[in-house]
């Protein structure tokens, strides 16, 4: 009897997860077919990779905001760390690995490692705080990362990699190349990010987050979110689990940043400012905290929407705001929620 119960339980837990994977895969196939049959406009095609990157950002921030229950306002900072380290890696490997997808994969892994390290360093002071204070300090660290990258120079020549801060003092030998140029960022990036790569990254991010949530660590995250004092009383190491969620989230944001950056020929640190952090937070809040599929859909809609509203020219942001408010009201409406849940093909049949 125990075993059967366990299987049933697994099914109930798994239903929502399967639905998320199914939606992502179906959406991928539809977009891929539409894009190859020239059904998608070229501007839409160009948005496929950024949408994937934003979806991964939404999933990654959801781990901190929805599952761990801490508000982070500096998530774009980790994205930029990933973008710069990833692109730099891809440029350095250009001669070594000619096959672009492998180079992209390595760049994203390096980006994830760098961002995770940044998350760890920032996490040490930040995770001692709670609630509003934590949110404000993450905001500050997001800005600090932006400022550092705005003043960071890195180049390579026959002597190896050279770095400098504030001004370009790298003094590269002839034949050397300045890769990161402070406020000018990185330019001349090979656009090796592809839509399939974005979809694979999204699936991997979902797999990591879902598996993490349905494990002892995930239960610990949610326990800390629900009642910190009770969590301590049953012997959970609060700092360790907060750090784990924060670092994992930063790593995923880093990989997304690398994917995002390699879709453009130029990338600058100012692209990843406070507004980007808030935009990602809006995806999470609008999609529902802790709801991965909701965040993914919100990321897609809110990235496409400003483009689609372009024909309204100066009224564009006004309409954007109105649609945002309507969406918020709609997703909180009990009847609409019920209607949406009826559309779920994996839903358990009510007795």
């Amino acid at each position, binding site marked *: 009897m*125990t075993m059967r*119960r*366990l299987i049933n*339980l697994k099914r*109930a837990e798994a239903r929502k997860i399967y639905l998320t994977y199914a939606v992502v895969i179906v959406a991928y196939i539809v977009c891929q077919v539409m894009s190859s049959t020239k059904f998608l406009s070229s501007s839409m095609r160009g948005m496929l990779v950024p949408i994937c990157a934003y979806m991964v950002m939404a999933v990654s921030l959801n781990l901190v905001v929805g599952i761990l229950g801490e508000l982070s306002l500096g998530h774009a900072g980790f994205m930029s760390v990933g973008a710069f380290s990833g692109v730099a890696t891809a440029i350095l490997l250009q001669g070594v690995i000619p096959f672009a997808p492998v180079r992209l994969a390595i760049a994203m892994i390096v980006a994830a490692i760098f961002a995770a390290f940044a998350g760890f360093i920032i996490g040490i002071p930040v995770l001692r705080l709670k609630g509003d204070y934590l949110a404000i300090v993450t905001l500050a660290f997001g800005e600090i990362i932006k400022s550092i990258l705005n003043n960071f120079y890195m180049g390579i020549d026959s002597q190896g990699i050279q770095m400098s801060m504030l001004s370009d003092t790298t003094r590269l030998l002839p034949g050397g190349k300045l890769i990161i140029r402070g406020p000018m960022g990185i330019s001349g990036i090979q656009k090796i990010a592809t839509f399939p790569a974005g979809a694979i990254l999204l699936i991997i991010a979902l*797999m*990591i987050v879902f*598996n*993490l949530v349905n*494990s*002892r*660590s995930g*239960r*610990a995250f*949610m*326990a800390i*979110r*629900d*009642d910190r*004092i*009770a*969590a*301590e*009383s*049953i*012997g*959970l*190491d*609060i700092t360790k689990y907060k750090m*784990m969620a924060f670092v994992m989230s930063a790593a995923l944001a880093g990989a997304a940043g690398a994917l995002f950056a390699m879709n453009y020929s130029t990338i600058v640190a100012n692209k990843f400012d406070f507004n980007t952090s808030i935009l990602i937070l809006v995806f999470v809040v609008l999609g529902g905290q802790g709801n991965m599929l909701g965040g993914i859909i919100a990321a897609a809609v809110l990235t496409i929407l400003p483009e689609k509203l372009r024909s309204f020219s100066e009224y564009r942001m006004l309409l954007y705001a109105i649609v945002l408010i309507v969406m918020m009201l709609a997703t909180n409406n009990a009847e609409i929620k019920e209607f949406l849940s009826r559309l779920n093909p994996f839903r358990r049949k009510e007795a």
Partner: protein
Amino acid sequence: MKAKTKYVPVPSTTILPERDAGRAPVLECVKLGITLGGIKAVEDFNLTVGRTEIVGLIGPNGAGKTTVFNLLTKVYQPTTGTILLNGQDTHGMDTRQVNKAGIARTFQNIRLFRNLSVIDNVKTAMNNEMHYNMLSTILRLPDYRREEVAAHRRALKLLSIFDMQHMADAPAGSLPYGAQRRLEIVRALATNPSLLLLDEPAAGMNPSETADLMDNIRKVHEMFQIAIVLIEHDMSLVMNICEGICVLNFGHVIAKGTPDEIQNNPAVIEAYLGRKKEA
């Protein structure tokens, strides 16, 4: 952190139940005290709890009963005195370490993980006995599966003590009040404590629920052979299941003894009912 001193057994002045005689007590508080905001919330608190004893901690409102629990679980660090748990000085430990050393507790105002399912509440408390790592988590390696299945079975077994196994999948926050109180006890038991602290387990229960709770506490005591300290205002429960009772008033212990002794103690009667007016 100060080095932990090894406890040297000294003859206890407290009378332990006969079955615990000759075994080191699970808990020994010596001259425990704390000052909160200039007020001595608890002062000179001495208590010895036998290995399988059930002790009641009673007293009027504001007497410092919950403060004693918060001192034992290191929510507050005591300003004076020593707590010896299984002979080990808990000086410098935090709440988490005290739990690992063997104290589990419930709370006066229920503190469950409301959005987690009932069984996940229990499994969360088993976190320290599960060892699979991050890689096993993400790749779902065999040790993840093995440990999760084992934890699931044990959690269901623990829930079945309180006849709650059929509620396993319900969100903890949706349970009726009595069931939430029981779940808190199950969650505390899941950490394998040697001492269980129950803070007003019968608060808000009707007489039949209280009677059930009494049976359940006895059952837990018998099954796990652990010591239990409970704070309670329901005197029928306290007098029925406690072997030793400690009465607090204004942060001081005013009486200690068996239920019979406490019921006839003039100081206790005065604390609860007031002094008879002199004629």
